């Protein structure tokens, strides 16, 4: 163990970088300082450095908000085994009332204050990791926190820690000291966000940034002077250069972060305010990948029932405040993760509080999280020698899962070891089907994709209002306002989001053939579902204009498109056949050609006087007013094309592949693809 507390404290905040790597980096900086300025490294040559490039996250970049419950959260009263008689007898008066606790199933219940979290759990957006802890932990706050914040496989009590697990992750991103990839709301950077090279930045909550290039013009000489002061190297001990460079970093960061500080004062508890500010930083999309927020006061040695209820209130209010502030576009990119240095003693002490314990509970929260119970509830009849719950899950399993499957880092490298992982972020096998487009005023600049697992992903100017996360999803369709959409499943179920209303579904009804596609009524007040056999189900303002349900088709129907006047629609079959109904006219088909590859979908031209068919190799057939703007027919694709959507002008379209790859043609613009998020489920469709 450490010889003195100063060591410990240093370990738990930033460290002087005395590693050989750190020294050589300083030399590197010194050499480059003589040449050109390096934006983003916290170092600038004399004179004004070039503008700091904004580095927005892409929709496939996971953002992680870490919530540290400092002091040791009483896991046993956060997620309580309320149906276990042992819980009530051991916890005595401090046990949660089973009538008030919020049941999660398996005999467990959430603390009654966590009502917001319970609603999220019911929506399938909260993973509860039970029995999380550390096998070798002692009961010191500082040693335990060092384990959790350090996070490496080879940590032993007393090792000197120079970096934390998210700091090493930031190192791997190539994050510079002036980057804002990692953020903490504090005056110091805690160990978990300190890397060998990178380090998270400490930011204020609310207010205005009176620093950087937005200060009044008469202060402009000050900025240049700070850059002069920050250049070069002094022979003045370990801190002088870091202090001087921090001034430059602080200027660059102020410029970059300005959009996240609109100038109003955020109101509420400190924790709420910090989470609201975290949401603003994510909304500003300046490249933040990891944020750390702390809720303190969990060292509940006395008055557990009262003080813990207050803390749970704050935790719940903070999470809800975060989501209230978070932009719907960014929400699917964010996961929240809680942690605490240890749980607490099962039997209360004489002050109705609980002393330091071992295993606790953690939450991972987000619209792309697969909710449910993970890990194992520690036994109350098999406590350790001090009367503590035995850990069932190493905390680094949670880290490894988040690193590999959410942040897309290399968990083995970051944690310096292998840990069992959870299947925490939605995924499922695939069956190719396609969907057509829905008109939208913003469609040139954004589109949605839905995966078979029911995950909705948004790109460009296109808001995300949530995902059903129901396996067997077949289509997503935008509401004409652009602010909402419907998602359909093969069982005929319909989920509506944003402006899109619910007008009924086939969910729970028995279907002879599965639903394979959906079309939205152009007035936004209804929709059609179409089944593989050509059966049509119409809802709301969408009228029935005929179906192939009574014909015996050689090949199944694979796609549907609505006429823009709402009084007709088309189907297409796998062999390229087209069926037109109501006001929708027939402009030709590929039914008479022998196709190399099957047709997988169709899209109507916005004028209603033509349509496109697309094959799984990306070949496109254009009919009527619909023009040909290119295809991937000649490119060898890694994964088949599954869907197509057109721009509002009809002068371009996107093709989407099963792995989420997007190909834009004509006036359609590329806004990002899902290529890297394969584990969230193969893509089923696209809507613009």
């Amino acid at each position, binding site marked *: 163990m450490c010889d003195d507390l100063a060591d410990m404290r240093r370990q738990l905040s930033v460290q002087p970088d005395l590693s050989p790597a750190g020294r050589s980096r300083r030399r590197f900086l010194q050499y480059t300082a003589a040449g050109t300025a390096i934006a983003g490294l916290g170092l600038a040559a004399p004179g004004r450095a070039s503008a700091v490039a904004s580095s927005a996250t892409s929709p496939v970049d996971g953002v992680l908000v870490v919530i540290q419950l400092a002091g040791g959260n009483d896991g046993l009263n956060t997620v309580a085994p309320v149906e276990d008689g042992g819980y009530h007898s051991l916890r005595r008066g401090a046990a949660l009332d089973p009538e008030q606790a919020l049941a999660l199933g398996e005999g467990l219940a959430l603390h009654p204050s966590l009502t917001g979290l319970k609603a999220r759990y019911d929506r399938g957006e909260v993973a509860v990791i039970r029995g999380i802890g550390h096998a070798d932990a002692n009961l010191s706050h500082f040693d335990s926190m060092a384990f959790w914040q350090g996070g490496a496989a080879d940590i032993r009590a007393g090792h000197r820690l120079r970096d934390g697990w998210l700091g090493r992750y930031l190192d791997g991103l190539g994050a510079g000291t002036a980057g804002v990839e990692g953020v903490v709301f504090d005056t110091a950077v805690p160990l978990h966000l300190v890397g060998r090279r990178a380090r998270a930045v400490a930011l204020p909550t609310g207010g205005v940034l009176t620093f950087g290039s937005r200060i009044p013009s008469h202060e402009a000489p000050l900025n240049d002077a700070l850059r002069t002061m920050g250049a070069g190297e002094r022979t003045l001990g370990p801190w002088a250069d870091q202090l001087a460079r921090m001034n430059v970093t*602080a200027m660059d960061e102020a410029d970059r972060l300005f959009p996240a500080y609109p100038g109003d004062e955020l109101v509420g508890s400190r924790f709420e305010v910090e989470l609201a500010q975290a949401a603003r930083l994510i909304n500003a999309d300046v490249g933040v990948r990891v944020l750390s927020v702390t809720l303190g006061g969990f060292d509940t040695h006395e008055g557990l029932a009262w003080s813990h209820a207050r803390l749970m209130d704050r935790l719940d209010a903070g999470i809800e405040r975060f989501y209230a502030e978070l932009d719907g576009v960014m929400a699917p990119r964010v996961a929240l993760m809680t942690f605490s240095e240890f749980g607490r003693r099962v039997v209360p002490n004489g002050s109705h509080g609980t002393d330091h314990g071992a295993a606790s509970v953690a939450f991972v929260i987000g619209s792309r999280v697969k909710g449910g119970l993970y890990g194992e509830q520690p036994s109350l009849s098999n406590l350790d020698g001090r009367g503590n719950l035995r850990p069932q899950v190493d905390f680094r399993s949670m880290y490894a899962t988040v690193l590999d499957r959410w942040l897309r880092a290399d968990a083995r490298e970051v944690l310096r070891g292998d840990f069992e992982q959870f299947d925490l972020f939605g995924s499922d096998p695939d069956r190719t089907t396609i969907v057509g487009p829905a008109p939208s005023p913003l469609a040139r600049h954004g589109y949605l994709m839905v995966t078979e697992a029911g995950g909705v992903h948004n790109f460009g100017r296109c808001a995300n209002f949530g995902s059903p996360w129901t396996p067997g999803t077949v289509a997503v369709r935008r509401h004409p306002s652009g602010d909402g959409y419907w998602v359909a499943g093969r069982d005929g179920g319909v989920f509506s989001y944003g402006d899109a209303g619910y007008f009924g579904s086939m969910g729970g009804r028995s279907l002879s053939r599965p639903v394979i596609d959906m079309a939205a009524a152009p007035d936004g007040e209804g929709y059609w579902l179409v089944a593989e056999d050509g059966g049509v189900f119409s809802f709301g303002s969408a009228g029935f204009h005929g179906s192939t349900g009574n014909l015996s088709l050689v090949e199944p129907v694979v796609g549907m498109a609505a006429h823009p006047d709402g009084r007709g629609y088309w189907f297409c079959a796998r062999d390229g056949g087209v069926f037109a109904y109501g006001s929708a006219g027939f402009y030709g088909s590929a039914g008479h050609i022998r196709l190399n590859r099957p047709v997988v979908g169709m899209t109507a031209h916005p004028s209603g006087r033509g349509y496109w068919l697309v094959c799984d190799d990306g070949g496109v057939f254009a009919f009527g007013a619909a023009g040909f703007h290119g295809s991937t027919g000649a490119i060898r694709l890694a994964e088949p094309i599954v869907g197509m959507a057109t721009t509002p002008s009809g002068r371009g379209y996107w093709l989407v592949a099963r792995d989420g790859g997007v190909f834009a043609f004509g006036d359609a613009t590329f806004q990002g693809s899902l290529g890297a998020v394969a584990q969230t489920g193969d893509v089923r469709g696209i809507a613009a």
Partner: protein
Amino acid sequence: MRRDEAEHLVRRTGFGVDQVLVEALLPLGRSAAVDVVTDFSPNPPADAPAGIFDEQQTRWAQTKRLGAWWMERMRSVPRPLEEKLVLYWHGHFATNVDTHKYGWQAWEAHRVMRAGCMGNFGDLARQVALSSAMLLYLDNYRNKAGRPNENFSRELFELHLLGSGGHYTEADVTESARAWTGHHLDAERRSYRFQPTQHDNGSKTIFGVTRNWDGPEVIGEAVAGRRREASARYVVTRLWSFFGYPDPEPSLVEGLAATYSDANQDLAVLVRAILNRPEFYSDRARSALVRSPVELTAALAKGGGISAHRSQVYRWAAAMGQDLFRPPDPSGWSSQAAWISTVGTWVRADFARQLAWRIFDGRTMEAVHQLGPEAAVDFLADRFSLGVPSSQTRRAMEDCWRRGAQVHDFHRFRNAVVLTALSPEMQLG
């Protein structure tokens, strides 16, 4: 004593550099100079700040008053080492007013540390342990026989006396918690009262000795008994890290620990020994420490000649992360790199702007407005005790002054104060 040594000694034992004191030390040898800075008799008596016992006021209003009063002393007393030691002990024996019932309980703990900062360490630790502030902060006032509360017992070993170096076991913590049962407060939670019925009179095994231990005896045993060597190393390492540099060499620690132990844990002997060590004057020591927000704001207010009240240093230090009487956790405040952060820089700049206005408005630096760039930087370096500024700092400040010729005197001066406050020379302690 050489001027640079005298300035270093004054800088480290105070807040900012008092040139009057430096001049007084120049004719003296090191040991005599140390005797001067460790003699607190020239300081005005530290009578209770006005209104501290006024229970009509909230705890926070009371501590704000106390904080402003204390920081004014840091800035102005002739022998500020007294204040610096109390600041050190406030971090060592951290307590937080949020857990108190009355604001004056923070003052009571403060007074105990002030009275004991040059006395016997065991006495100091015992008095702090029985202060209402500590009894409330670490819950010992509810530590009862039969159902002990370990909070105080654990932090006592890990933070106050021994450090987490394996000098005690989990069982020692549990047993010590039993020994501390019954050391409570009166019914109004105003002051210490021993409640015999709540005290566990059974035998306990602590440090391998089994008997009917009582809490305060555990401190004696740790400090001067079976753990005296470990405790000496711990106290020496922490105090040296505060005054000299972090991670002192083992030989240095052993030497000081021997002196301290031979003197029966007399802190005055240890403090003088630290300030007399050649290592204290080494190059390593000179630039090893980053000023904490309290140290930095007090030094800037001292340099600017603005009172703690008018400069609101108490509030600004809190905004930078060092809120007196509200340390973040039982281990007090972090040091060095913990104070180097983006938000810290922004707040320091805001504070410097505000301070510049006070100085300008108070006309305490009128002469500087007539000076050219080089002379102006000399003037500021002297007033704010920057020593010899590095070439980068000097060039930055001179350029800024030169370019400020077109703007109003105040804006030019304000930029210069911000640069001073943000210079590494100012931010190093």
